[in-house]
């Protein structure tokens, strides 16, 4: 796990605007948390958790209201491109949550208590292992017998597990869309 014990981490920190000029989805991981990872002159900021070799793994643990601010999906792309598969927080901003789910990055919302426990466990032992299971919707630390359930939109869960596609799903209903368009009270 990689802990960033800060609240309100906004998408401008996850991927600063000046790196949004690419027209493809790949390669954003390089600039993930750019200004927290590196100084203006490009030197590594040792104190930032992503630069700490003790913290490893595919799970990012962050303070409440993670992903607030801009709707840039580049934030989810950057996290996934960097290698994260799961983000744990006690609260996610809506648009970020949707973007993450649309990119196979699992946002897991846990209670504030559980989150604080995680932070202190990682503090005591940076190599603490946590297991996240989408099927049973649980996160657990086996060794300590610590478990917590999490919620996920059932549709999104199916998508993540079975690889559904929103566009295919809606395109299968084009005749309904046409009926809707011609039948409504007021159209623009």
């Amino acid at each position: 796990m990689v802990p960033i014990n800060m609240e309100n981490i906004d998408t401008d920190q996850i991927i600063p605007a000046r790196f949004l000029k690419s027209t493809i989805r790949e390669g954003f991981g390089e600039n993930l948390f750019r200004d927290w990872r590196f100084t203006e002159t490009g030197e590594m900021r040792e104190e930032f958790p992503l630069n700490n070799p003790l913290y490893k793994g595919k799970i990012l643990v962050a303070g409440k209201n993670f992903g607030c601010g801009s709707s840039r999906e580049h934030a989810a792309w950057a996290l996934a491109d960097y290698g994260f598969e799961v983000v744990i927080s006690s609260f996610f901003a809506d648009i970020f949550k949707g973007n993450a789910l649309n990119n196979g990055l699992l946002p897991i919302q846990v209670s504030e208590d559980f989150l604080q426990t995680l932070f202190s466990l990682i503090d005591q032992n940076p190599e603490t292992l946590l297991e996240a299971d989408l099927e049973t919707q649980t996160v657990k630390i086996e060794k300590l017998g610590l478990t917590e359930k999490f919620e996920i939109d059932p549709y999104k869960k199916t998508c993540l597990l079975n690889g559904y596609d929103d566009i295919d799903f809606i395109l299968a209903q084009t005749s309904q869309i046409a009926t809707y368009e011609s039948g409504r009270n007021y159209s623009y």
Partner: protein
Amino acid sequence: MAKTLFDKIWDAHVVSQKSGFPDVLYIDTHFIHEVTSPQAFEGLRKRNIPVFRPGQTKATADHNVPTINQHLPIKENLSRLQVEMLTKNCTEFGIDLYGLGHPFQGIVHVIGPELGLTLPGMTIVCGDSHTSTHGAFGCIAFGIGTSEVEEVLATQCLLQQKPPCMKIEVNGKLQKGVLSKDIILHIISKIGSAGGTGYFVEYAGDTIKNLSMEARMTICNMSIEMGARGGLIAPDETTITYIKDREFTPTGNKWTQLLDHINSLQSDNDAHYDKVLQFNAEDIAPMITYGTNPGMGTAISESIPDFSGIPEKEHYSFQKSLNYMGLEAGKSLSGKSIDYVFIGSCTNSRIEDLRLVAEFVKGKTKSEHVTAWIVPGSKQVMEQAIAEGLDSILASAGFELREPGCSACLAMNEDKIPPGKYCVSTSNRNFEGRQGPNSRTFLASPLTAAAAAISGKIVDVREFID
């Protein structure tokens, strides 16, 4: 059953509902810009499908564009490529583009309303969180990610879970010098930058009713800064007067039908809201932010909170924020020297904002050490400002009127606040580095920003008004 305005618009746009699935929601108008659309078009190419209803998507170039010499090719390579890519995509997929040089060009949330593309009762989306702005017209308007942009291009619909609805009522008379920007900064400072997360907000109350359309847009614009998906205000005479006779506003029969439709766009009296908050206009003073999220705001006449007012587990984030800003807990911001003033962004770059600023600075001169930029929200706003002679008033006061775009709101172009410098900005976000790496942002109203430019420091604008 009694319905809120939000329920009414939502329900009228549901194409299909299936248990266990989100609603298929029909989208009337889709706006796109150069930054969040290229990967969506790429997706369509991969699927080998066209844009489903190309006439319902409108494009503009705003985030990345320079604000001087817009007639010349964009110097910065990547920015130019991104803008060129938008042109290419719009041509290939048959979408109207109001790009650089076009008389309709401007910030996407400024041009939609001013062109009559934003109308009451619509569903509107855009790959941009401040799409909430359009809610001022009584629409359901919200920001989406690029995968969803692709979804709307491909189907004119979105799979969406219906969010709960919150009502925020503001009643009473505003004090002199207090603008709608202060109302929304006040609300966010009270409920926090996550206080609205998950909700759609309806703003109501007589204070809101008495606001102009421009002022209402400023409020709805910043709904996202409290975490809400969007914000909306029931349409009324003010709305109708604003939309009438605009470029794309329907005429003739269609207009009469629209007026009829607008009549139905009100929340029922006994409609149920999942949450209700109330504010008093008299309690609102000119506001300023001191931290690195929009919830960290205070009345200029008061001090930055001290640690006693902050929950213990937030102390670290709070201190980190103040360190970044170079400020101290418990101190007053009044008198703090500043370096830049930025009047612009989809929050406050409309003609009314420019008029207010021009009226305020007329006959005054900006402080010598301050750089003051005014970036109009659109070509039309710019032309209007020139037609009204605001440009010369602003120029004599030492303000630089630039060409339209997002500019220093997110500093994707050259308009950056240098590291460590302080900027009083009428934009909507004070995140670390938002206006340029290590820049420091104070969010405020256009009047407060203008007063700061004149004084060279943060002042309570009420000192200028008697």
